[in-house]
């Protein structure tokens, strides 16, 4: 495989499920240097492979890639995440000449899966094609097999997690998998790991389902070399002790992200009642303090992370007694709680557990149900439309019934499985004003009436509405010690810009333009009526002016958002310019 750059094995594992063929591909050292990190390498490979726009995300051609970055697998605190990159199953432009146009999708998940890919000797896994019948991928170092998964098809993720461990006969395998939602091609299906960690966004689970791939199991014994061994181990010591001294460590350990539920509500920037409000009067019932008192049993950490922000608990009484699961976190608690006006912590835990069990993205699902609750309240749809479900605000049982319909795409669930954009275009009238999405991907748990920077981030993100702005490579010195390259802040920013621009070119080629960098009317026209940010709304002229400045600053045409030749050339993306210059 040639000489890989340090920190990389120099090998990507490619599995073509149509042919049942396994292949080892070299990682080009140039790509590894210029497109650092899973998201970076992901867009480069996606660009190279999908040479034409308009390829259906659910077609065998669309590669589904699991890409840990160059830091992943090393025992560095808080870098364990794996990026899953593919063409989005969920997004769509306002208009395009291609019927199946969509954006790039990148969704990441913590835990142990990414590090184990590295231990098996690979810098990533690329899955292409479609298996003739349900299959799983077995990877034990160099032993790679596509195996029969027919008896697992249809299983919920928690049962599957237990059954799969028995099938593998060794607890040291790390696994990820889809649930019934992914199998049934719900557009916002997730990929789960440890039956509670999810790569939820952008329909990565839907793409996995379209390939008839139930699961991947991986285990290994290897590790890549580093360029500067002594510097690496010394820096590792420093980073470890810096976490000990950091005041945030205690807070993260105690409440995880759930600590933000009350805080964001108190600041009027939480997603409440389908984003109508920013403050939830019952936030204290579902926040970190209540969960610590009533639900949580213990803390869980991802690979070598000293924060353990993940909390697992059990419902001890009432109709949902016995439900054990992780949560609530900020996103899950807000989207399935505050956004639906659900203040019943036990019911919320049940919902979160069900969504992970079915393999649905909690953020998109919270939007879909919130949207339908609002449409029902306003009389845009009736109970018949909802297949008899009395979908009132705050109703846990009705929410659970709808979750099941979406998972199996039964009745209304079929339409709802395509997201709020599809629902609004079916329901019509002015329902698009409260269909909370950007480019077809639903917004996350941060409301934006009183938070313009966040609004901006949602509007301009390359995967559709995204709450994780920017790319966190972090640990720049460690990256330098591992790869032997010089990393400083300017080169870091430059690399991020290169990655972001190539993603943008991908989207541009598909037909995404300035009109797609838009947010629902609600944020401009319906000011908050409650809480500390009462009266707040986005101002359209300011928003548009900021966009103008943003595109100019980026070196993009403010009218079309097309990146300029100069910008792309300066980033070494001439090859992308050739593709978009006539568009």
């Amino acid at each position, binding site marked *: 495989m040639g000489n890989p750059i340090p920190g990389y094995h120099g090998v990507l594992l490619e599995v073509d499920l149509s042919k049942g063929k396994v292949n080892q591909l070299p990682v080009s050292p140039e790509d590894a240097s210029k497109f650092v990190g899973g998201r970076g390498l992901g867009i480069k490979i996606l660009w190279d492979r999908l040479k034409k726009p308009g390829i259906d995300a659910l077609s065998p051609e669309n590669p589904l890639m699991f890409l840990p970055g160059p830091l992943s697998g*090393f*025992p560095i*605190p808080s870098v364990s995440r794996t990026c899953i990159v593919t063409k989005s199953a969920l997004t769509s432009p306002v208009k395009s000449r291609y019927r199946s146009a969509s954006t790039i999708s990148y969704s990441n998940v913590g835990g*142990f899966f990414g590090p184990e890919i590295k*231990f098996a000797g690979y810098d990533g896994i690329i899955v292409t094609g479609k298996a003739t019948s349900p299959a799983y991928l077995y990877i034990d170092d160099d032993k790679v097999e596509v195996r029969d998964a027919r008896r697992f098809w249809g299983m919920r993720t*928690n049962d599957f*997690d*237990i059954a799969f*461990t*028995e099938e593998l*006969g*060794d*607890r*040291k395998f790390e696994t990820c998998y889809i649930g019934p939602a992914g199998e049934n091609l719900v557009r916002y299906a997730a990929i789960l790991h*440890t*039956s*509670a960690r999810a790569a939820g966004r952008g329909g990565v689970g839907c793409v996995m389902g379209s390939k008839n791939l139930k699961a991947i199991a991986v285990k290994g*014994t*290897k*590790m890549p070399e*580093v360029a500067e*061994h*002594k510097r*690496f*181990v010394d820096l590792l010591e420093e980073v*470890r002790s810096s*976490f*000990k001294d950091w005041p945030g460590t205690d807070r993260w350990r105690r409440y995880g992200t759930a600590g933000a539920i009350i805080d964001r509500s108190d600041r009027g920037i939480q997603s409440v009642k389908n984003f109508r409000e920013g403050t939830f009067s019952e936030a204290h019932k579902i926040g970190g303090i209540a969960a610590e008192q009533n639900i949580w*049993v*213990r*803390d*869980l*950490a*991802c*690979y*070598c*992370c*000293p924060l*353990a922000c993940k909390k*697992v608990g*059990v*419902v*001890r*009484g009432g109709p949902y*007694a*016995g439900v*054990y699961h*992780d949560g609530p976190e900020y996103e899950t608690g807000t989207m399935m709680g505050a956004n639906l006006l659900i203040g019943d912590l036990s019911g919320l835990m049940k919902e979160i557990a069900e969504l992970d069990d079915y393999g649905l993205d909690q953020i998109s699902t919270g939007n879909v149900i919130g949207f339908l609750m609002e449409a029902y309240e306003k009389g845009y749809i009736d109970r018949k439309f909802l297949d008899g479900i009395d979908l009132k605000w705050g109703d846990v049982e009705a929410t659970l019934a709808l979750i099941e319909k979406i998972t199996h795409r039964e009745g209304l669930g079929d339409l709802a499985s395509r997201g709020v954009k599809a629902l609004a275009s079916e329901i019509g009238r002015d329902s698009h004003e409260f269909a909370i999405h950007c480019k077809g991907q639903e917004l996350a748990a941060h409301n934006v009436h009183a938070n313009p920077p966040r609004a901006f981030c949602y509007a301009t993100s390359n995967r559709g509405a995204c709450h994780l702005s920017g790319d966190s490579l972090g640990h720049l010195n460690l990256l330098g010690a591992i790869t032997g390259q010089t990393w400083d802040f300017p080169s870091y920013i430059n690399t991020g810009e290169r990655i972001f621009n190539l993603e943008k070119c991908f989207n541009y080629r598909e037909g995404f333009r300035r009109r797609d960098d838009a947010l629902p009317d609600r944020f401009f026209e319906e000011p908050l009526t409650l809480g500390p940010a009462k009266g707040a709304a986005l101002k359209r002229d300011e928003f548009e002016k900021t966009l103008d400045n943003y595109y100019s600053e980026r070196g993009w045409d403010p009218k079309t958002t097309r990146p300029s030749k100069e910008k792309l050339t300066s980033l070494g993306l001439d090859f992308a310019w050739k593709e978009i210059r006539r568009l």
Partner: protein
Amino acid sequence: MGDSRKPNSLKGETLRTIDLRGVTDFSRRDFLRTAGVGSAGLITFGGWLVKSVSAQERPAYSLIVVDFNKCTGCRTCEAVCSQANEKVKLDGEELLGLGNPRFSNVRVYSFNPPVEIPNRCVMCGDAPCIEACPVPPDPVTGRKALYRDEKTLAIKNDPERCVACGSCAEVCLDKRVGAIILDPVTSKPGGICNLCEGDPACVKYCPFEALTHVSGGLDGRHYALPPEKVAQELISLWYYHQK
């Protein structure tokens, strides 16, 4: 690797509820019984121990114990154990390794519902692994291929004399915690905690202070529980609700 621990079924129906008072009583009884055994009990254990040690001058056994309430399953212990025990020589300097978990002497097993068990050699005083080693004791040192280090009292293997029969790993898996891992190439035992010369890296670096180096450790029959068993009890304890 040859690490093919069979996962036990942990489905609901096989679980039972643990009586906390029972657990407390057991610990107390365990303590009393061990304390009462005295030298008479030690005689039964095998020649090497009674030769030199009376009940009063027991060697300073020590082991790593886990507070499962604090363990978050982050596996820092795996990485730092590997770093400390698979060092790298560079320009004449001995440096910590990169932390590949395959070289670790502690292995974290994850269960569903979430319970994390860092599994390691618990230094059974009666050492059934040494008992099982078929290599005859060396006439000078008295050591079998698998032997107890006189200084740290940790179990060690002499690869020169080891016949790679796997008896030690088998008996550990069968009767104790299943800590011994056979090398996939040589089939010789490894993965045995050596207490890092008395300053265990896992204890030092555990971000959650879940690991402690304590003295103790006599008859492993009393405390050397396999991860599956510990997990089952903890699952009952943590996740089972009263209807």
